[in-house]
């Protein structure tokens, strides 16, 4: 049996492709495949994997969402109580208005304010905590948070994704809606001028969660097991004797919408969570199953194409691929905020280095979202880890527009999350976020580095051919094809994109 994986019949989340078959397929950052060696090739009997905890997802299918006198789920029909909007508005002094719009696939060509977040609707069964036990989740429907302030200024100002939904969403990305899903879209209006202050975006999210939470309560009440259309099992194993790795996820912490609520009571909830800005952005260790069970409620930053929304963590490809890789011993996920001031960036990155040292890991992945000054601490995390003799791979959107502003001698293994044709932030939601094809390249690269293989230096200028070549090389070695995800060219082209980026 492959440790970490039991029966997983669902395709609700992106199934890990798990390319490991005992060979540490390697790749270089500059198109040359490195060792396909087997570092741990000693024939000594490896210790048995140790099961740490398990998580079960029960899926309930929703085919229709309507309004009615009571929030309830009848079979595959979700009814949302009429008038709940006022309670959502009243719950937050900064929220002046809230509208609910139910977007069915035939209404995808609808104008929307900027999409702040996409969230799964899920709840824990009685007695279970986020990260273990049983989670119930609705399939076929998601929560979408949108909004402006009283003056019509987008809450996600700067590169916002307002416009027609079908022209601005990259379907099927881990963080984005899947085509065919129904959106329960809130359009929140917050007090003028608070769109760039911390309480504003938080109020929009909190008001929306009033609605989500009522749906969660309805989901909890279901006692008809026949409504469960699918069950997924996630097992977190430690694998003694295998290369010990950690996933370091840099999340935004500069303030305003650059914040994340950590460890709510309910998956992607609000209650019980702490904003990472208030924690001082210091590293927080969570289990991979907590990540996959919605322990991060992302307020999401600017840069629609590269921001990691709450749903992204729910189906985080790197965590999934690493968790299920029988050749890696994933010891945890380290969440570290990205503060504004350089001194604070270095403060938290030193803690990242010290944490990795204390955990005695062989390798680390460092991911970030978006671009800008967060690349300074991203580079510093890699330096702090690398200087301790730990192999480290960085993942970020870079390409042309997000080119790194700093570097150091430990930044030799880098994976670019770019998918856009032009290598830019193209305002298409989630287009340039971390996908399974990026996770696979990163894992191959880290295995190569941990086994002492070479990773060629990247060219000075961004060249999409590097990624293409590396994918081909990995496919050739593993014998398992990797089909790159589609990009914005698969969407109906908006006038905005046509005129701006063509």
């Amino acid at each position: 049996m492959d440790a970490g994986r039991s029966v997983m019949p669902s395709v609700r989340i992106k199934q890990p492709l798990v390319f490991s078959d005992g060979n540490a397929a390697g790749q270089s950052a500059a198109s040359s495949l490195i060792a396909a060696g087997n570092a741990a090739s000693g024939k000594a009997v490896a210790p048995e994997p140790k099961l740490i905890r398990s998580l079960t997802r029960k899926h309930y299918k929703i085919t229709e969402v309507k309004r009615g006198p009571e929030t309830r789920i009848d079979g595959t029909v979700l009814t949302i109580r009429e008038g709940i909007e006022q309670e959502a508005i009243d719950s937050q002094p900064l929220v002046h208005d809230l509208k609910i719009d139910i977007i069915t696939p035939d209404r995808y060509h609808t104008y929307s304010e900027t999409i702040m977040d996409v969230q799964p609707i899920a709840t824990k069964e009685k007695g279970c905590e986020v990260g273990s036990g049983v989670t119930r989740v609705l399939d076929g429907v998601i929560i979408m948070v949108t909004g402006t302030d009283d003056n019509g200024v987008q809450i996600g100002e700067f590169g916002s994704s307002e416009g027609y939904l079908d022209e601005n969403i990259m379907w099927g990305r881990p963080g984005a809606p899947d085509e065919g899903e129904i959106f329960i879209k809130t359009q929140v209006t917050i007090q003028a001028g608070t769109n760039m202050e911390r309480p504003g975006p938080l109020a929009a999210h909190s008001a929306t969660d009033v609605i989500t939470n009522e749906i969660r309560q309805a989901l909890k009440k279901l006692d008809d097991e026949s409504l469960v259309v699918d069950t997924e099992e996630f097992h977190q194993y430690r694998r003694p004797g295998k290369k010990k790795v950690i996933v370091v996820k840099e999340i935004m912490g500069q303030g305003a919408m650059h914040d994340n609520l950590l460890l709510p009571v309910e998956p992607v909830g609000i209650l019980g969570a702490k904003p990472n800005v208030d924690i001082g952005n210091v590293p927080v260790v969570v289990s991979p199953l907590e990540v996959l069970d919605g322990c991060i409620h992302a307020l999401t930053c600017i840069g629609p194409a590269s921001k990691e929304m709450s749903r992204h963590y729910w189906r985080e490809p790197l965590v999934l691929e690493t968790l299920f890789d029988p050749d890696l011993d994933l010891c945890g996920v380290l969440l570290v905020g990205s503060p504004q001031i350089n001194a604070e960036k270095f403060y938290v990155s030193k803690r990242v280095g010290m944490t990795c040292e204390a955990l005695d890991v062989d390798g680390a992945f460092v991911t970030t979202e978006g671009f800008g000054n967060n690349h300074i601490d991203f580079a510093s995390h890699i330096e702090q880890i690398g200087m301790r003799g730990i192999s480290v791979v960085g993942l970020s959107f870079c390409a042309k527009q997000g080119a790194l502003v700093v570097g150091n001698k430990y930044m030799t293994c880098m994976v670019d999350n770019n998918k856009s044709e032009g290598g830019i932030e193209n305002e298409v939601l989630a287009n340039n976020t971390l996908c399974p094809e990026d996770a696979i390249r990163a894992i191959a690269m880290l295995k190569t580095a941990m086994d002492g293989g070479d990773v060629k230096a990247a060219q000075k200028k961004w060249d999409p051919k590097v990624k293409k070549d590396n994918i081909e090389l990995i496919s050739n070695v593993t014998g398992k094809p990797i089909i790159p995800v589609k990009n914005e060219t698969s969407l109906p082209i908006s006038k905005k994109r046509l005129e701006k980026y063509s």
Partner: protein
Amino acid sequence: MKYGDKIIYMEGVIVEVTDGAVGIDLKGRLGYLKIPMRMLITDYEIKVGQEVGFQMSFIEQLGPEVNEHYIHNHQNMAAETDPNES
């Protein structure tokens, strides 16, 4: 761009600070810039009145076309965001 390689050193003064953005007056009365916080690299606590430096080129029109998308977003919103009929 025809003149994109003409990079000029510019300075500005921070005139507005919010949790998510800063407003910058360009010295010499050359304009105003508002940028997300993460596009500003800072070694110190950000305060109104601090000076900043950066390089930029002249800004050029990319063509004569008007992008209706940007102009009509708000009109679209008013026209198309119907309350949910169901």
